[in-house]
């Protein structure tokens, strides 16, 4: 299968930028990352993907196993989730064996970690697309993205191919509806990303701060409204909550 190519920095370079010398504690196997590193002098658990890999059943299990290891052996250690994946493995056998359930299991493991006091911080480092982002990264307490990351449902060209709406129409609309635009910045306008980190930023300091300021309260709808990218979600949710009381 073709994998989308990119001219992004190597996976090791990204890890070194985020974790300095402690990045050596992160294993990279079949584009799945697991390990322990340090941020601002404190230990963190790291799970993730790299090289824009597709996430299959085995990858989901390896990520889940590492989360379980962290919960069992490193109580309350923050978990940093790195995302560079183009999507779920589009494969019939993967589907037959219940890829959705493997993802559900990974999410359950992360939920367990959250309930047991582990902070969950996501950094979208490369591609963070569709199901690959939903199956762990978007489940973080707080989600960040490198400016160079490709974040979103899908690029406008792909959206056009499926919906049969011409690319220029979607491009024009995306100027006023950032939800249709693809990338870290428009995703942040929707509240889906807390903050975008630029090439100039000291990302180790940013990550340390992100861990320190983390909260388990999901603030994405509030952010989306405040930033103007997702104007309706919060109010509709509030109306459901208010009318259900009556």
């Amino acid at each position, binding site marked *: 299968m073709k994998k989308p190519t990119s001219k992004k920095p190597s996976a090791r370079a990204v890890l070194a930028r985020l974790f300095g010398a402690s990045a050596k504690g992160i294993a990279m196997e079949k584009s799945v990352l697991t390990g322990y590193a340090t941020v601002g002098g404190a230990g963190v658990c790291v799970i993730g993907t790299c090289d824009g890999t597709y996430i299959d059943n085995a990858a989901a299990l390896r990520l889940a196993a590492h989360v379980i290891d962290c919960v069992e052996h490193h109580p309350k250690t923050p978990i940093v989730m790195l995302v560079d994946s183009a999507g*779920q493995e589009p494969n019939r056998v993967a589907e037959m064996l219940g890829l959705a359930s493997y993802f559900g299991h990974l999410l359950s493991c992360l939920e367990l970690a959250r309930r047991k006091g582990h902070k969950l911080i996501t950094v979208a480092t490369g591609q963070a697309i569709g199901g690959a982002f939903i199956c762990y990264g978007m489940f973080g307490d707080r989600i960040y993205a490198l400016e160079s990351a490709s974040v979103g449902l899908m690029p406008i060209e792909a959206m056009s191919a499926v919906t049969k709406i011409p690319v220029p129409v979607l491009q024009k609309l995306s100027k006023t509806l950032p939800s249709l635009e*693809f990338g870290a910045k428009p995703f942040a306008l929707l509240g889906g990303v807390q903050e975008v980190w630029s090439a100039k930023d000291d990302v180790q300091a940013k990550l340390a701060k992100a861990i320190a300021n983390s909260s388990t309260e999901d603030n994405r709808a509030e952010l989306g409204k405040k930033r103007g990218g997702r104007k309706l979600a919060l109010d509709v949710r509030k109306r459901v909550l208010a009318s259900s009381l009556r």
Partner: protein
Amino acid sequence: MTSGPLFHEQTARQRIAALADTGSFAELLPPPERLTSPYLVQLGIPVSFDDGLVIGRAKIGGKKVYLAAQVGQFVGGAVGEIHGAKLTGLFKAAARDRVPCVLIIESGGVRLHEGSAGEIAIAETMRAIFECRAKKVPTIAVIATDIGAYGGMGILSTCCDFRVMTEHGRLGISGPIVIEKWMGKKAYDSSNRALVWKTSGGKTKYLLGDADALVHDGADAVRDAVAKLLGKSSPVSLKGVKERQKELEKRLKRFGDTADPDAVWKGMGVRNIEAASLASGPEFAALAKRGK
């Protein structure tokens, strides 16, 4: 076996009326409130006054529930900003009020016409579902149509405590047409309906343990299955996830190199493939004796 209309042929509102105790359903943000998608308007696509999701309060067997049904006829039941916000709100209300939440899923996942907004809404709803689970508030997904639960909604369904399926229901992430496009017709012929259902249909999902009940394609049977689960919950625990990890590892080891769904059925204890293929949901469940 029950008589009456087939569940998969009913509309979302008919399904809700058939599951809820007579007259007990009170819709929240009903169509007169005219909550329509601004995205679809700008794209010149017809809108729906409920944005393709019916939500409300109801009773099932005298027990209070929050009940929702996606409208598959409207953009494939796909999740846009409003649709998704209604879903998040309902599960949040369920967690707040400690009232079980039942979701009849009929959705291909994120509504592409609304881009990433629907994707974020699904992620937010997952958080709300786990809020319920932490409070031991039961969350139940019903998957009973060929539109099924796909994409982000397939993943979301696996976050609920329980999944009730019929043999018509399909559960997955990537649909057959997408996979065929990627892997070729040899790897997945999306026009081979038997193969499609053996890959993602209720029978296979029940056999593998991803569906908790496999019932007849009728409202009575679905309601009975839901009613039985309303008193139960399965909060996330270390013991639970460790067991599940082992189970999923074993499944992958046993069947990871198996292209033939019949081999999976046989491996899971089905002796007569032909009889099992023709069996109704409950007959199949009896034949298969899951866990044996």
